[in-house]
């Protein structure tokens, strides 16, 4: 894991003091809310429906136990004893007092964390594959590059007032677990034919009201050119991105309206001009950052664990949890544990301070002191010995975090929605909770198999509904909440944007509608192995339309 050097420590401390002064000026009335707004936004402070909200960055989703304990401490001391893990690998606190926020930031700085640029029209927290450094399919760990990008983008003087927010994701394996193609810049670490490391770069992906899949702008940018290439893209965007309409201000619209070829020509021209400048990365500095992410010292273990096999035989619930929530690790005898923050009837991504403390303890004891936040709003223990899985599971059961539903229909992504968010037009969490209860039966969930259900409470799509196998978008129509359903979306390497299936459903109808879709899939699939998305891609929307809107068929 990355550790702050003197420079980083001095930087975040200075930043906290700077913000403390700004908050004092706001509280005293010297700064108006108008003048304070851009300052607070760049420090992660939003004004929500009921209160200020603080969004804390978890850079590329990686944190250690000490940091997780601090997140718990903040929830306990300054908030209502819980936090909300987000789809951008961050954590949000919904009820902090403005005058407490400098102290919260000071507490965060003491464990090498911050809330810089978690909002505002700037380069946001850089995200990465939550299985980075652990997954068997990895070409290289993406996090050293994400960390270099984090540093370069932090208070970049030229890019703090962009046309709109700007999101970068980095993955290091051909399997995309970070929805990389739905970011303003998506970077996939790869090797060229000479075995040198670099990046395939896509640009202009995004969700929101105009969902677009990123377009490949460069098949291979050398490692040493990472910053100059990204700077070239950002400069072109800052110069030419639209500022006349906030809904047309993301780089995806620029790509769409200008055309990839012309944009690429501009980017390439700027890149050629600056690539041999001070931004060229010296190999030694990249390797030094990379060394922070060196794999932990895994024990040499056999590929199977008799202890695990025996425990699975005697405990059916545990067996299920292992099947569903433990993924293959690159080191023999280890597994990657997904702790699903998706208990029946719970708000997706919420964790209490006590649960965070348990996660911290488990990370420290069983996972080389490492944890991850996933964009699916779960927490990952990346390096757990197969022999230890039962102990981890038992502790999770005790803490109410042993849901064996990773990747299943109740592993729902949902935005905060109208319960918290000033932008929302409909509630998301109650819909997620009702679906979670409707499909609570694990036998049934397993029978349904892999199914990604994602819910947004407004068109801004924070709940990623466009890339849900089943997506739900809450809108407001004539004073009522109405839920539109999209089918066939996917955020992985076979990226697809879901298609609207027909007229929306009321909050009373939406759960039944999802059940109808699921039942239709079950009758149409060719085998138990054909997942929902495959069936949908094979049969198309018609059978689902027929099932959802039978009256129209008859008429």
């Amino acid at each position: 894991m990355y550790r702050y050097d003197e420079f980083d420590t001095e930087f975040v401390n200075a930043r906290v003091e700077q913000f403390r002064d700004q908050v004092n000026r706001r509280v005293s009335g010297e700064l108006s809310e108008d003048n304070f707004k851009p300052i607070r936004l760049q420090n992660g402070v939003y004004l929500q429906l009921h209160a200020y909200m603080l969004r804390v960055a978890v850079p590329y989703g990686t944190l250690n136990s000490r940091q997780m304990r601090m997140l718990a401490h903040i929830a306990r001391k300054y908030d209502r004893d819980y936090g909300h893990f987000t789809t951008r690998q961050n954590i949000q606190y919904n009820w902090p007092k403005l005058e407490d926020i400098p102290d919260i930031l000071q507490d965060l700085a003491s464990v090498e964390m911050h809330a810089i640029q978690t909002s505002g029209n700037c380069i946001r927290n850089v995200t990465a594959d939550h299985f980075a450094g652990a997954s068997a399919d990895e070409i290289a760990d993406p996090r050293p590059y994400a960390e270099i990008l984090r540093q370069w983008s932090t208070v970049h003087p030229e890019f703090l007032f962009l046309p709109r927010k700007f999101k970068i994701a980095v993955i290091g394996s051909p399997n995309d677990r970070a929805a990389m193609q739905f970011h303003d810049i998506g970077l996939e670490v790869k090797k060229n034919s000479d075995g040198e490391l670099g990046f395939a770069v896509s640009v202009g992906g995004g969700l929101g009201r105009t969902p677009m899949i990123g377009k490949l702008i460069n098949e291979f940018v050398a490692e040493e050119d990472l910053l100059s290439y990204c700077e070239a893209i950002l400069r072109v965007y800052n110069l030419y991105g639209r500022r006349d309409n906030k809904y047309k201000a993301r780089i995806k619209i620029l790509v769409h309206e200008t055309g990839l070829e012309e944009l690429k020509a501009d980017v390439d021209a700027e890149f050629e001009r600056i690539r041999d400048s001070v931004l060229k990365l010296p190999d030694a500095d990249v390797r030094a950052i990379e060394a922070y992410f060196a794999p932990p010292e895994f024990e040499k273990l056999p590929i199977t664990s008799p202890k695990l096999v025996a425990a699975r035989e005697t405990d059916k619930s545990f067996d299920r949890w292992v099947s569903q929530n433990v993924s293959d690790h690159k080191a023999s005898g280890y597994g990657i544990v997904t702790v699903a923050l998706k208990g029946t009837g719970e708000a997706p991504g919420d964790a209490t301070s006590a649960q965070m403390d348990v996660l911290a303890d488990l990370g420290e004891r069983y996972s080389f002191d490492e944890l991850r936040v996933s964009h699916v709003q779960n927490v990952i223990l990346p390096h757990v010995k197969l022999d230890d899985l039962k102990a981890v599971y038992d502790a999770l059961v005790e803490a109410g975090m042993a849901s064996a539903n990773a990747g299943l229909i109740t592993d729902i992504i949902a935005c905060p929605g109208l319960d918290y968010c000033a932008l929302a037009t409909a509630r998301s969490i109650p819909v997620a909770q009702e679906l979670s209860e409707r499909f609570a039966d694990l036998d049934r969930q397993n029978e349904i198999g892999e199914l990604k259900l994602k819910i947004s409470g407004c068109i801004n799509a924070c709940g990623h509904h466009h890339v849900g196998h089943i997506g739900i978008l809450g809108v407001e129509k004539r004073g009522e909440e109405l839920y539109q359903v999209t089918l066939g979306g996917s955020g992985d390497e076979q990226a697809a944007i879901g298609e609207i299936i027909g007229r929306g459903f009321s909050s009373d109808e939406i759960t039944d509608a999802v059940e109808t879709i699921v039942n239709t899939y079950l009758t149409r699939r060719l085998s138990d192995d054909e997942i929902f998305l495959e069936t949908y891609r094979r049969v198309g929307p018609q059978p689902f339309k027929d099932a959802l809107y039978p009256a129209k068929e008859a008429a």
Partner: protein
Amino acid sequence: MPTLFVDGLAVEDTWTLVDGEQPIPDGEDVIVTLPVYQANRDKLLARNDGRVGVHLDPLEPVEAIADDLDHLALVSLDFPSFADGTSFSKARLLRDRHGFEGEVRATGDIRIDQVSHMQRCGFDALSISHQATINSLIEVKDPSLKLYYQPALGDSDTRISGKAWARRAG
């Protein structure tokens, strides 16, 4: 009236802004808008009794004057609102891509928290109307951090060992 700061010091603004139909005064340093510049280019370039500067709105590209930069003493770039950061990149292009060595002036809605960013992008003059920002600059109250994760234009700051991209002021 905005207050002009050059290299951090409040100074008298000796330039006259010419916008629209008014005649271009002889014997004075003038800043003209791009339409005025384009309509009077030959006359302005032939002028020998006063320097010439051009003011660009965010949507007017620096390429519009790039070929004439050798003859211009000043380029003024506007920030119509605090949130419109287009001109940060334009300053950078002027200095970096086009090698412009004259004055690069920022005008418009400028706040104290942006001043250091402007300087790092190549602005050396700021024409400021926001009173609190004027006060802060006169009192030399600079809230900016002196640590940077990016090299600035000119790159004269102190390098940080192991982080080729980072700098410390001075």
